[in-house]
């Protein structure tokens, strides 16, 4: 195409390529199986709703629960709108500080999603990178990386988080601790999840390495790094996407667990887990909505993402097609 078109069109050729790709996607078998599965469509829609609610929270949420100045203690402990004592202003009720539960959930989801996403990206980059090197280079490097992976697996996320937090507390001055907490959390969850990516990518890399297009690249004289990144990587990313989606659900729950245990995000930026934790204190004194609604939100979000991951795995499995 570039031979025929002039400079003007080559700068816009990315547009045609994108449109081309989209056309191919909507015509593909994957999209067809998507359309045919009502559960998947529902899961997708649900996830989209959560995303929009979370990231458009500053605009959509009825109240900005993070702004302490807007809180009114008189509003505290209001039950949900359909119960006696509830008001239509606070659809899902309020907590002990007068925060609107619905808005808190939306902002909380934002934190959960950010932590979830960033930790998955961390895992993917670390895992895929190590897996590629391990699979392509082989030999002692491979053994070393796999042994590190084995050691990593024996540390659960919670333990890693506790270790990292303890370390951070000892090293950093007081003021920085809260700001850094979220990053420590991301690294902790990321570190506990990279092994599955590394293993899958290593296996696929070893398969691709023996294929003739890799040998052709070696004959041309490409460096091992160039071959790994430009040739092998695009061909091993398939399963990574599936694992990443399911990992996201897991990361969100892990973050909630850590926050629930008090080792997660600081209370000034509550995530769903934090909300559940604080609300838990009031569960048996009758104000059940403070913990149940965030809990439900967490479950639905994790389930939706999980179902999407399931569908993706089946759709991408050539044997089932």
């Amino acid at each position, binding site marked *: *195409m*570039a*031979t025929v078109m002039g400079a003007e069109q*080559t700068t816009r050729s990315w547009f045609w390529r994108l449109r081309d790709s989209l056309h191919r996607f909507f015509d593909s078998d994957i999209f067809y199986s998507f359309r045919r599965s009502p559960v998947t469509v529902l899961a997708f829609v649900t996830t989209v709703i959560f995303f929009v609610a979370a990231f458009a929270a500053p605009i959509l949420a009825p109240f900005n629960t993070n702004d302490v100045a807007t809180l009114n203690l008189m509003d505290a402990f209001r039950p949900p709108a359909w119960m006696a004592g509830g008001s239509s202003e606070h659809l899902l009720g309020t907590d002990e500080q007068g925060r609107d539960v619905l808005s808190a959930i939306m902002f909380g989801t934002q934190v959960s999603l950010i932590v979830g996403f960033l930790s998955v990206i961390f895992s993917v980059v670390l895992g895929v990178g190590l897996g590629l090197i391990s699979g392509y280079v082989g030999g002692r490097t491979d053994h070393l990386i796999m042994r590190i992976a084995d050691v990593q697996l024996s540390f659960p996320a919670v333990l890693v988080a506790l270790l990292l937090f303890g370390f951070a507390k000892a090293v950093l001055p007081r003021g920085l601790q809260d700001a850094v907490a979220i990053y420590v959390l991301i690294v902790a969850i990321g570190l506990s999840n990279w092994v599955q990516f590394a293993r899958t990518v290593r296996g696929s890399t070893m398969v691709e390495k023996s*294929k*003739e*297009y890799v*040998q*052709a*690249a*070696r*004959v*041309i*004289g*490409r460096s091992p790094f160039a071959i790994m990144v430009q*040739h092998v990587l*695009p*061909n091993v990313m398939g399963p990574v996407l599936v694992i990443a989606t399911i990992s996201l659900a897991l990361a969100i729950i892990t973050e909630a667990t850590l926050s629930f245990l008090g080792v997660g995000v600081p209370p000034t930026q509550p995530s769903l887990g934090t909300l559940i934790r604080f609300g838990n204190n009031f569960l048996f004194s009758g104000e059940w909505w403070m913990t149940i609604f965030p809990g439900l939100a967490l479950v639905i979000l994790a389930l939706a993402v999980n179902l999407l991951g399931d569908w993706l795995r089946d759709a991408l499995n050539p044997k089932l097609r």
Partner: protein
Amino acid sequence: MSANDALVSLSDLSKDFDVSPPFLNRLIERQDRLLLKAVDGVSIDIPRGRTFSLVGESGCGKSTVARLVVGLYTPTRGRILFDDIDMATLKTQAEIEPVRKRMQMIFQDPYASLNPRWRVSDIIAEPIRAHKLLSGRDTIARRVGELLVQVGLAAADGVKFPHEFSGGQRQRISIARALASQPEFLICDEPTSALDVSVQAQILNLMKGLQRQFGLTYLFISHDLAVVYHISDYVGVMYLGRVVEWSDKRALFQRPWHPYTRMLLDAIPDLEMTGRQRIPVAGEVPNPIHPPTGCHFHPRCPYANDRCRNEVPTLVHKESSEVACHAVLEDRLPEVTVSGEPANATAVC
């Protein structure tokens, strides 16, 4: 045939693979190291502008020789001379690159030899970009289009992905990629074995045409003797890692010397003589990890004697061929008829 006009010269080229059991097993079970001698002392000369074919059955090492020449494996022993340059003397990247640029490879499997995620134009342009032969997107694109047309495809095919093409078309793309850096020497590893007969004819015609047009030298690996007959100028026969005979095509097919060559030629199903009664030679290719002593072929050879069982034969000049066979040296072989059937054939099916 003088060695002076040989573009590529192999002397005693060898490659051993370590197939020993893991260290711990060897320690505990007291096992020895196991060495697979995939290529064992190959010495041939490939003349400039001609096609030299290496033919043999599975496990004979011909594909390994191809990979040794192109640099995918390092030799255990022996020397590779390319245009009088000893490949082993090239140490730095700066020294190796200009030489490697002059040789390219075409692979057997049209489905695995092209990266499924790359567009055809990128696949063909890769050598150009890697060796910085041209610069500028339009210049490169024009060259890619030229190459596509040269191999019988259309310039517009560049935007497509490999899976949109048939096996034969993919081999054409592989050939275009191999030609992109304007090499002098092309190593072809069974390029038509995975293709249908009519497509094979197209590719063979194309390769012959390109050779004439650009003065290319081919090292052609194949197990199909008929294809080898059609495309080669010189043919070498390999058995279990060694070259047992090599000479120019006509001499080899009309006056084969080595018993294995004779057996191979006799085993080919012949389109001309339908329903002919053949007496195939017995036995199968032995395990390459524990090959027979002396001449590898002696268990299946009707002319084997004690010397064959103990002494490895070396390539010796006989009329217009190079043969590695004691029986030939000792003149113990019967005369051969034109069709390749010896006066007395042996063994049963």
